[in-house]
C-alpha cells in the first residue's frame, strides 16, 4: 500500500517535473495536439452547422403540390386532406383554391391578371400543398396521390420533379461524404503527427529510460510518468481548443446568421457540450496512447 502510494506520488511528481523541465518539447507536442483538436472540433461543429442547414433546406425542398380536378366537392377535398395529415410522412397540409393559384401566378408572370380578365374564367386548378418530413418520401407520396379520384389525371397531377429532387439529394449526399472524408483523413493524420511528435520528444529521453531500466526499474515505473505527461498535455490541449471553439461558436453563428440570412443556423449549446467532451476524451486518449507507443520501443533494455 505504502509502496503503491509512493510509486503513484513518484509518477505524478516526475510527470509534472518532466513537463516543466521539457517545456519547449512539451509545449510543442501540446500545441500540435491542440491545433489538431481545434481542427477536429471545428470540423465537428462545421458539419453540425452544415447538417442544420441541409435539414432546413431539405424541409424547404420536400414539398409537393397536388393539383385537384375542377369542381370536386369541398367534403372530398377535406377527406383527402385529413387522410394526408394522418400520414406519418407528411408534416403539414395546406389547401390552395383556384383564386389563390391565380393570385400567385399573377405575382410571378407579367400581365397575367390582364389575361385572366380577358379570359373571363380562371384556368388554374386548386391544389393541396404538402410538406414532407423527408425528401426521400416524395416519390411514394406522388404515386399515392395519383391514385386518388379527385386528383387531376395525367402528367400534371403533381408538381413533383424527379430531376431536381435527385440533384438536391446528390448534393446533400456529397456534402456529407466530403465532411466525413475530411474528418477521417484529418483524424488519421492527427494521430500520426501526435505519435511522431511524442516519439521525438521521447527520443530526447531515451537515455533516461535506459538508465532507469538498468538501475532496476520496471516497465510500468518508467512508463507511468511519460503516460501521465502525455495525458497532462492532452488535457491542456483539449482545454485550450475547447475554450477557443466554445468562445468562437456563438459569435460565428450570430455573424453567419446576420450576414447570410438565408442560412437557417441556430446556436446548439448541447452539441457544443458533446464536442467539448469528445475533445477531452480525444486529448487524453491521444496523449496516453501516443506516449505509450513512444516509450515502448526504448524499454527493451
Amino acid at each position, binding site marked *: 500500500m*505504502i*509502496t*503503491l*502510494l*509512493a*510509486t503513484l506520488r*513518484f509518477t505524478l511528481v516526475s510527470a509534472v517535473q*518532466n513537463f516543466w*523541465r*521539457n517545456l519547449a518539447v512539451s509545449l510543442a507536442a501540446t500545441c500540435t495536439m491542440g491545433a489538431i483538436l481545434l481542427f477536429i472540433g471545428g470540423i465537428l461543429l462545421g458539419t453540425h452547422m452544415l447538417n442544420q442547414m441541409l435539414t432546413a433546406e431539405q424541409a424547404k425542398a420536400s414539398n409537393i403540390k397536388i393539383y385537384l380536378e375542377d369542381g370536386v366537392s369541398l367534403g372530398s377535398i377535406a377527406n383527402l386532406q385529413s387522410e394526408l395529415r394522418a400520414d406519418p410522412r407528411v408534416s403539414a397540409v395546406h389547401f390552395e383554391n383556384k383564386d389563390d393559384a391565380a393570385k400567385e401566378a399573377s405575382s410571378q408572370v407579367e400581365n397575367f391578371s390582364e389575361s385572366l380578365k380577358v379570359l373571363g374564367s380562371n384556368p388554374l386548378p386548386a391544389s393541396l400543398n404538402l410538406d414532407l418530413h423527408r425528401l426521400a418520401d416524395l416519390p411514394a407520396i406522388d404515386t399515392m396521390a395519383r391514385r386518388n379520384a379527385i386528383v387531376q389525371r395525367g402528367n400534371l397531377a403533381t408538381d413533383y420533379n424527379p430531376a431536381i429532387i435527385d440533384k438536391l439529394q446528390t448534393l446533400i449526399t456529397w456534402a456529407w461524404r466530403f465532411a466525413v472524408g475530411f474528418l477521417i483523413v484529418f483524424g488519421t493524420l492527427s494521430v500520426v503527427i501526435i505519435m511522431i511528435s511524442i516519439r521525438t520528444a521521447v527520443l530526447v529521453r531515451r*537515455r*533516461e529510460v*535506459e*538508465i*532507469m*531500466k*538498468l*538501475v*532496476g*526499474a*520496471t*516497465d510500468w*515505473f518508467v512508463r507511468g510518468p511519460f503516460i501521465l505527461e502525455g495525458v497532462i498535455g492532452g488535457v491542456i490541449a483539449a482545454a485550450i481548443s475547447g475554450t477557443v471553439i466554445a468562445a468562437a461558436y456563438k459569435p460565428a453563428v450570430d455573424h453567419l446568421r446576420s450576414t447570410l440570412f438565408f442560412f437557417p443556423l441556430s446556436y446548439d449549446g448541447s452539441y457544443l457540450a458533446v464536442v467539448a467532451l469528445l475533445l477531452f476524451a480525444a486529448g487524453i486518449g491521444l496523449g496516453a496512447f501516443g506516449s505509450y507507443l513512444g516509450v515502448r520501443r526504448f524499454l*527493451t*533494455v
Partner: protein
Amino acid sequence: MSLAAAARPALAADPALRPVISFHGVGKTYPNGTEALHDINLSIFQQDFVFLVGASGAGKSSLVRLLIREEVSTSGRIFVDGQELSRMARRRLPRLRRKFGIVFQDYKLLPRSTVAQNVAFALQVTKPGQRHLREKVEESLWIVGLEDKVHKFPDELSGGEQQRVAIARALVHRPPIFVADEPTGNLDPDTSWGIVQLLLQINHRGTTVVMATHNREVVDLVRRRVVAIEGGRIVRDEAQGQYLREGDATLVSGGNR
C-alpha cells in the same frame, strides 16, 4: 588455477557457499562482430572482493554488462544467485538488477534530475515504499563527500563529483552485490583512497564487491583477489597483487602500448 578460484569448489555443494556469481564458458560477440569475451570461467562467492584489471579494451566493461544483463552472452552460461541470466524473462530483469549496486564507467546519471533525485530515484526503484528516503539519500551523499551538491544538476558538477554521485547511487540501497566499473578514474588519489576504504568496509559487512579498475596503487595496497583480462580472456586470477610488480617493469620501460 589461482588461490581464490581453487580454494572453494569442494564446498560448492553447501548452498551457503554456492557462488553468488558464476560464469561458465561465457563468450560475447557484439552485433558489429567484435569478439569482446571468450570462454570466461569465473566464480565469485559472497563477501569476495574482486579487482578486474586489464588493458583498455580488454573486456572488463563487457563482463560487467553481461553480469547485470545489459547485454546477453552469445555463448556459455552466467548464474547470479542461482538464476541463469540468458533464460531469464524480461519482466524478471528488474528484480535481478535490484540485487546490484552498479557504478557505470560513464556514470549514467539522469541529466535532468538533481543529485538528490538521482540517488533517491535508485532507492525508490530498488526499495519501493522505503521510509526516511531523504535521510538515506543525504547520508549516502555525505559518505562520498557531496553533502553540499545535493540540489545541483549533473552538468553543474565536476567530473569527479559526477563519479561520486554514481557511487552514492549504487550504495544507497545497500545492495548485496556492488559492481563498479572504473569508479575512481576521475578522482584524485586521496578521494579514490577514501572510496576504496568505504568499499572495504561494506565488503567487511558482507557485500560482495567487483571492481574493474586501472588504479595500480589501489590494487597493490588493498591486496585482494585480482582477475586479469587480456584480449577477452582471463589470463590470471590471483588472490594478491602480483599484477603491480609485473606492471612496474612495463611502466619504467614505457612502451607505446
